[in-house]
């Protein structure tokens, strides 16, 4: 079907502003991705999938400038952890700040360096999971990324890797427009923890394709940076093998626009996927969690826990879907999306969906929205806790269910600390 004129024009304009890297094994995947973008067109606000989030600022040829925020009152969130550090500044790899990429049990390379080879393990994954994730809902911004991202990290874990890989994204230029495409492969029985943090750029488009083989484990914790004016659209496409584990948690504080899409396919029996998000927004803040989980194997478990604290006109969006295919019997699917509206100007918009074709399943979703529980507040105040501390306490308690999804309790504590610091700063 031909694209609407306006979509066609916008897509053409955006494509004209980009240059595709040439040569190497990703070339075919990139060309195919470009064809996908051209046939789908970039998202438009009339698209049902963008009902609650306006995509214009993510699709425009020019980036809207975003002031760089001085976060020097806090050390980078994962700085205290022993990790393999990789740093990108405005989407450009920074060798000086990064560790040596050689580490036992881990094959790790930059996309830009690896691409010149003729064959590469990442070739089977690059663009493949993204393509699979285009059905039934199109995600043109991810295809755009596959076509045009020059760099990213390719990680292959073949054993249990204790030391996490820590990607830090630094924002330096107020007109930076960055794209990164990561490919991660966790081999059979291997385990990897990936940390991500930082605002990355004025506008950031990131795709991460993750293949977790049978009995593999992948843990992902990220904190999106505090820059108020940054915009980001991120996609995770993951495919899970038998008895594999995938856990992802995202903390979002600030940012004028964030759209985090997570597309998971459970293809091996008894796989487990947990994804969670905690977001705290104040003022001009629009946060969108869009999740699509496909159960395509027997006995899998999926769990989605999303919590949003919103005030001063902040907007929280949740679109989550569990699709259970006909043969995915014994599926256990759970989804909860909750928002705490701290004042009358904020909004919570949700579309939690179930689409189920197998009968022997237990799937549920819940969604709530409301203010702080007056009775709980009264209880704390009557015990001498000042009102504002009591509000913070209850807010943290509200967010705790999402943070609990972080497997490593040390990292969970760090996340909680950041959230309480954020709340404390609001009071000043």
């Amino acid at each position: 079907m031909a694209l609407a004129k306006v979509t066609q024009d916008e897509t053409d304009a955006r494509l004209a502003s980009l240059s595709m890297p040439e040569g190497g094994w990703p070339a075919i995947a990139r060309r195919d991705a470009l064809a996908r973008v051209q046939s789908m067109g970039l998202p438009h606000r009339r698209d049902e999938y963008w009902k609650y989030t306006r995509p214009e600022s993510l699709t425009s040829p020019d980036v809207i400038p975003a002031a760089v925020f001085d976060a020097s009152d806090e050390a980078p969130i994962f700085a205290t952890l022993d990790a393999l550090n990789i740093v990108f500044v405005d989407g450009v790899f920074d060798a000086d700040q990064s560790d040596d990429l050689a580490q036992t049990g881990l094959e790790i390379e930059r996309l830009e360096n690896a691409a010149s080879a003729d064959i590469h393990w990442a070739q089977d994954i690059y663009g493949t999971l993204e393509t699979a994730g285009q059905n039934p809902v199109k995600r043109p911004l991810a295809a755009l990324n596959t076509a045009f991202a020059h760099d990213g990290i390719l990680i292959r874990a073949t054993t249990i890797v204790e030391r996490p890989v820590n990607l830090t994204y630094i924002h330096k230029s107020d007109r930076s427009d960055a794209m990164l495409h990561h490919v991660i492969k966790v081999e059979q029985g291997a385990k990897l923890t990936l940390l991500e943090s930082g605002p990355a750029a004025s506008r950031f488009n990131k795709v991460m394709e993750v293949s977790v083989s049978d009995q593999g484990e992948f843990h992902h914790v990220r904190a999106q940076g505090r820059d108020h004016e940054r915009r980001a659209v991120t996609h995770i496409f993951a495919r899970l093998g038998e008895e594999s584990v995938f856990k992802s948690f995202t903390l979002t504080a600030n940012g004028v626009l964030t759209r985090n899409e997570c597309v998971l396919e459970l293809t091996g029996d008894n796989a487990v996927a947990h994804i969670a998000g905690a977001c705290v927004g104040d003022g001009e803040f629009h946060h969108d969690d869009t999740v699509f989980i496909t159960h395509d194997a027997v006995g899998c478990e999926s769990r989605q826990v999303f919590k949003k604290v919103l005030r001063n006109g902040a907007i929280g969006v949740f679109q989550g879907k569990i699709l259970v295919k006909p043969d995915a019997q014994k599926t256990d699917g759970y989804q909860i999306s909750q928002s705490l509206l701290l004042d009358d100007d904020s909004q919570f918009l949700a579309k939690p969906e179930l689409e189920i074709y197998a009968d022997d399943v237990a799937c549920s979703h819940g969604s709530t929205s409301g203010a702080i529980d007056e009775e709980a507040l009264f209880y704390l105040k009557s015990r001498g806790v000042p009102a504002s501390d009591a509000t913070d306490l209850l807010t943290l308690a509200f967010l705790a269910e999402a943070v609990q999804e972080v497997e490593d309790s040390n990292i969970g504590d760090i996340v909680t600390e950041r959230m309480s610091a954020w709340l404390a700063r609001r009071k000043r």
Partner: protein
Amino acid sequence: MAAFDNVDVKEGVDQETVDAVREVGGAYKYGWNTEIEMEYAPKGVNPDIVRLISDKNEEPEWMTEWRLSAFQRWENMEEPTWAMVNYPKIDFQDQYYYARPKSMIEKPKSLEEVDPKLLATYEKLGIPLKEQMILAGVEGAENMPAEGRKVAVDAVFDSVSVGTTFQAELKKAGVIFCSISEAIREHPELVKKYLGSVVPASDNYYATLNSAVFSDGSFVYIPPNTRCPMELSTYFRINAENTGQFERTLIIADKGSYVSYLEGCTAPKRDTAQLHAAVVEIIIEEDAEVKYSTVQNWYPGDENGVGGIYNFVTKRADCRGDRSKVMWTQVETGSAVTWKYPSCILRGNDSQGEFYSIAIANNHQQADTGTKMIHLGKNTKSRIVSKGISAGVAQNTYRGLVSMHPKAKNSRNYTQCDSLLIGDKCGAHTVPYIEVKNNSSRVEHEATTSKVDDDQLFYCRQRGMGEEDAVALVVNGFCKDVLQALPMEFAMEAQQLVAISLEGSVG
């Protein structure tokens, strides 16, 4: 009925149970056809047909104009495709938009004059008119007989049986209950004021088509501070082949009034699909309350998905006054395709909307149904309880919206939608939209999907129940929140319907 034959004796179930199940079984009970001479308008829809329908109803010029402008809009609209239903493209020009029994051309003055075939039709439908009236106090003025031309029949059957008494009684109470065509003639000021004020002629594809070609329907006006002395009821039946039914219902509950309204519908078995596109508008003023209950049992098509009714319905209640209240209860067991979202606009402060639904889809049925709760006024409350049951290769979708506008302070919504899957070839889907734009309101949404619990089934079977009986019992238990919200005489019927609809889905 193979499933029943397999179950009964082999299981050693007590014969009474088997008979009872047989009794309610027999698949679609209302699938027979009344052989009757019909008068049809030419096939297709165009401005001439719209004028013809308007003429037949002896409508004033303004009404004809209203229809024509709706038709003009409809021609430029596109059929919606967002619902999770698949059906062959409908040829809107390959249908009759108007059909009435020839015996109805001259309006009968009393029941004696009514074609006995029509009377027999109702007799056979198991709406024992008298009994029903005694049992339920059903007025019955609004019986759309065989062919969708109910004008005459309702008057007729009223004038014969106890109907007249009720008519007098209703009149004494100041209640107007008549066909919409009669209302357009007799009460133009009310119709002009309210028609299209809740569902505008431009609302959606099917509502717009309905605005152009609706042939009849019911009109209810309850005057201020009046409790309607009895329940009002409409029974819709499609009989003629290749004929679409487009009825329009308008209910106005003035300040402080109350009415409970029941709607039922069936159609004969035919192997071509038939179209039904209705619009129901309800206006509820200050302190008034309306209960609207539906048992939708249109012909669902056969077990191979041949035939059946395409049911595209727009129902909306506007709680205009403070403290007004509306309650939708629906049992959706029929239709090949259902596209229906009875909605509540909670405009008045402290107004309340409730939606209770059971949707059962078996064989090749597809149901996409739910509700919209639009909270505009302060302290408004809404409650949604939806139970979807899928069997065979059916698809059942709950689609709903809860919207809390910024000014709807201190409002409350509770939504529960549960789905039950019987068999591994069917689907159950939930698509709720939740929009909260103030923080003093609380919105809670819960949904679950599961299968019929093996332990419960085992328990029933152990006590000698056949498998289908056991499933029906468990399913009735699953639906009980909704069944309890139905008026008594409907609840009985609905429980039986649940069992019938699921027939053949086990084993």
